[in-house]
């Protein structure tokens, strides 16, 4: 899909601000692979009435709140399809699942689409073990 990025400057600045590492930056670097303390970053690309949310980092309680705000913004912008790209998401907890479930249902009830695309292995495990994968992840 050829998405046109549509983040406003303020929107981008907010995201960049949110991306900063945890305050003292003292997280242990263990072969660069086991770093946990990441904050969520979400960018939205818009192509007509299709919105793609590119989620990077940690969808924990705070991340789920941010994801919900961005989904709501897409719905308010009259998105017919919302794709949530989780290829760069490193963590997904039940708070994030609740957001996905709530808006997956809402969009479906309104004859619209909300799907997860390209989940990372960590996120894929969570989606599979909760029975979300079959219905919420886009079939390639």
């Amino acid at each position: 899909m050829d998405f046109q990025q549509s983040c406003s400057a303020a929107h981008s600045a907010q995201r960049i601000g949110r991306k900063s590492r945890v305050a003292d930056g003292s997280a242990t670097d263990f072969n660069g692979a086991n770093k946990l303390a990441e904050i969520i970053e979400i960018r939205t690309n818009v192509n007509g009435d299709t919105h793609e949310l590119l989620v990077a980092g940690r969808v924990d309680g705070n991340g789920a709140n941010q994801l919900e705000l961005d989904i709501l913004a897409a719905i308010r912008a009259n998105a017919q399809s919302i794709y949530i790209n989780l290829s760069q998401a490193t963590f997904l907890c039940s708070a994030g699942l609740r957001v996905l479930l709530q808006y997956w249902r809402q969009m479906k009830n309104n004859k619209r689409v909300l799907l997860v695309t390209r989940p990372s292995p960590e996120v894929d495990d969570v989606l599979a073990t909760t029975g979300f994968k079959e219905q919420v992840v886009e079939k390639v």
Partner: protein
Amino acid sequence: MEIVLTNRPEEEPRLLRALEALAAEHRLPAKVLQAADLALEEHVTNVFKHAYADTALHEICVRLSCDGRALYVEVEDDVRAFDPLETPLVDTSIPLEERPIGGLGVHLMRRCMDTLDYRREGSRNILRMTKRLES
């Protein structure tokens, strides 16, 4: 390793850093670290958000240890008696259209850790979770 948290959201990064430090020290597999991270997120969030019926500052004590065979995670709090293992099992075969919202946090804890044991000692809840290093 023991970390004492208060019920404030800004405390969470301290817990993550402690978990990472333990993982580095014991060279824990990424899967084990991710499992403990998820289980702690679910349980501590639950204690913080749902279990305290007042606005007072409370302490939650998290103990992390590893003996080469398994990672042990123990969470102690002074919330009213709350046994997460009494949470009904989630039937993941139910279509999402009909699925009740809730209960997924404990479901994830059950699935990502190998054992969960709850006990009540005096006025404190203690949840001990284990993740084998080779599972």
